[in-house]
């Protein structure tokens, strides 16, 4: 599964199969990390703005 695994071989089969897997996993993870961080940022910005307006 990983290049450091004892079964790993640097051949075209491993590169295509696992390249595809890590490509998909990478996009999904990056996308989710981005939306979670942006949601946290938006929430904090909103709360700061709201507290600013109340003073």
């Amino acid at each position: 599964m990983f290049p450091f695994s004892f079964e790993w071989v640097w051949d075209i089969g491993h590169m295509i199969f696992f390249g595809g897997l890590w490509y998909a996993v990478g996009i999904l993870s990056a996308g989710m990390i981005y939306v979670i961080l942006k949601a946290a940022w938006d929430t904090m910005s909103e709360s700061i703005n709201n507290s600013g307006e109340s003073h």
Partner: protein
Amino acid sequence: MDSALIPEGAKRCSLPKFSIGMAIVGAVLLWGVWAMFLCWFKGLNQTNMNDYYGFALWIWADLAVIAVGGGAFFTGMLRYIFNIKELKNIINFAVIIGFICYSSALLILAIDIGQPLRGWFIFWHANIHSMLTEVAFCLSCYFAVLTIEFIPNILENRQANKVPFFHHLAHNMHGIMVIFAATGAFLSFFHQGSLGGVAGVMYGRPFAVREGLLIWPWTFFLFTWSAAAYGPSFTLLVTKMTEVITGKKLVKDNVVHLLAKISGWMIVTYIIAKIIDTIYWAYVTAPSLGFKLSHFYTDNSFYGYWILITEIVICGIVPGAILVIKSTRENPTLRLVAIILGTIGVCLNRWVMVLQIMAVPVMPFDTWALYIPSWQEVATTVLPVAYGIMLIALAYRYLPVFPQEKELNSVKPITESE
């Protein structure tokens, strides 16, 4: 009692009535769970699978739910990548159906492998020469995509949406949904295809084997195409069933007509390709391997030419024609007939490609091997259906699944002239 959770402006049945319905379906679910635990604790001797049938009812159910669940990836692709705006009114439901189908497929596989604690071996000790490894990779990743696509709808629940972080998270996820939808379409293309490819590369099974393009047999493309064609029909069928059960109109006719039209054209093009494939296989591929067409459809008590005619003509050409012609497509009864036939057609295709393959004799001393599943297999196959009904019921009750529901079911004020 739970009115604070119900979407604003939506009317739902009382909680006791809802609970009774859930309890009835829950009893069926528990029957399936009991059979599942029997298979896990006592082993696959609980099934009627044998040396002929290493793939049996479960794998048919697995392939069938994946095929009909194809409506999620195809509708998602049309909505987010081709930007067909009308489909925003049905995409939530398509995603929920896809989520149910793919989680069911993974559950069935978890039972089928007999030793679920070793399920992770397929990733860690991957056999890179197996199409099923690709299927496992894509299936798991695509299930993650469907979960991601389902999350915003859950976060839009009336109470969850009051939490600022959840509100922003749902909004931001909608914002980049095109990326997730594109990844889902990429993954679906390969796993739907590879499920067909598994049949097409079985050189020892002349009923299944096909020529193809490079490493991909024609069944690879036919499976992807059929899932994209019939999946939307299944989405429309479940939508119609939900409308009948709830007694409400949930999606406007123009949306239904559009999705039915797209499904119809996909079915027509698919069935032309399927007919060409079948003729080439019957007159070139099978004879080159020493078999006549009649060998696959005679001398047994079940598999006759009727199954070929049913799949291609009754459940292929007929629904395709109904959905393509405007007047028949817009007739609610004919449209319902077409989407039912279409759903049966794709399930029948998967049955043929999983179970008829196993039944056909290959060696001169072989006979037809027919198979009847055990009650444990039936119960575990019914289990995902019960689970699906419960999840749809919960989602419909507590989530804003259908954006047009409020508009379509608003009570009109009584005017003086009335």
